[in-house]
C-alpha cells in the first residue's frame, strides 16, 4: 500500500510542474557546543536545496507567514533545519506543522519586521 501511495506521489509531484520552486533548507548545528568537554566545536551549518510549493504570504501583527509544501523524502525530519531560504531571503520555520502524513509535509515559515 505504501509503495502505491509513493508511486502516486511521484506522478502528482511531476504534475505540479513549475508551481514548484527551488528553496534552500539550512541545517541546524545542534548547539556547536560540547557539554561533555565544555568547549566549542567548529562545526558549520550545511544547506540542502529541494523543490517545494510556496503559497502566498499573509501578514498579521507584523508577522509575515508563508505556507510551504514538501515531499518527505526530500527533507526528512523538519526539526533538523533552522531556517529556509526562499529567493535568498531567510524565513524561520514555525513551530506548527500543518500536516505531516509521512509522505508530504505542509508547514508555516515566518519572518517579522519587513
Amino acid at each position, binding site marked *: 500500500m505504501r509503495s502505491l501511495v509513493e508511486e502516486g506521489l511521484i506522478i502528482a509531484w511531476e504534475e505540479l510542474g513549475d508551481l514548484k520552486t527551488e528553496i534552500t533548507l539550512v541545517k541546524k548545528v545542534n548547539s556547536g557546543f560540547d*557539554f*561533555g568537554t565544555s568547549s566549542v566545536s567548529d562545526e558549520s551549518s550545511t544547506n540542502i536545496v529541494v523543490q517545494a510549493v510556496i503559497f502566498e504570504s499573509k501578514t498579521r501583527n507584523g508577522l509575515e507567514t508563508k505556507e510551504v509544501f514538501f515531499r518527505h523524502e526530500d527533507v526528512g525530519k523538519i526539526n533538523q533545519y533552522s*531556517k529556509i531560504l526562499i529567493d535568498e531571503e531567510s524565513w*524561520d520555520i*514555525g513551530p*506548527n506543522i500543518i500536516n505531516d502524513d509521512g509522505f508530504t509535509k505542509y508547514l508555516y515559515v515566518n519572518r*517579522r519586521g519587513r
Partner: protein
Amino acid sequence: MSKYVTTETDIFSVFALETWTDEDIPTHPANYTANDHDTEFIRISIIPGSSGINSNSVEGILMIDIFTSAGYGDRRSLVIADILDQFLVKKTFSSSGRTTQIFESTLVSSNDNEDETLNRKIYTIPFKHFGVN
C-alpha cells in the same frame, strides 16, 4: 579541579546525555554565540553564590532561559520546563569525592525580551556542590 569547574562539569553532564540531545532542544551555555538563529532554544547560566560547608563547596542557582517563538502562546515553554524538571529536579551527581545536588525548580515569565520574535521564560533551580578539603 576547583569547585567552580567541577560544579559546571557536573551540571553540564546532564546536557551531554544522549537522552537530552534526543529531546531536540538546542542548548547553549551563557556567553556562547550560536551560528544559527534558532526559533527555540535554552541558555544555561550557572550562578555560584555563597560558599558551602568548606572552601571546596559552593551553593548557587542554575538559571535557564527558555526561548520559544513569540506569538504562539506559552505551552511550548511549559513543556520544555517540564522536560528540564525530568532531567534536573532532585538529581545528585557524585564522583571523585565530590557531590552536586540539584533541588526544586521555579519558572517565571520575563518582560525583558532580547529578541521580539522570541518569548522568554526563566527557569531557576538551586544547587549545592560539596567538595572535600
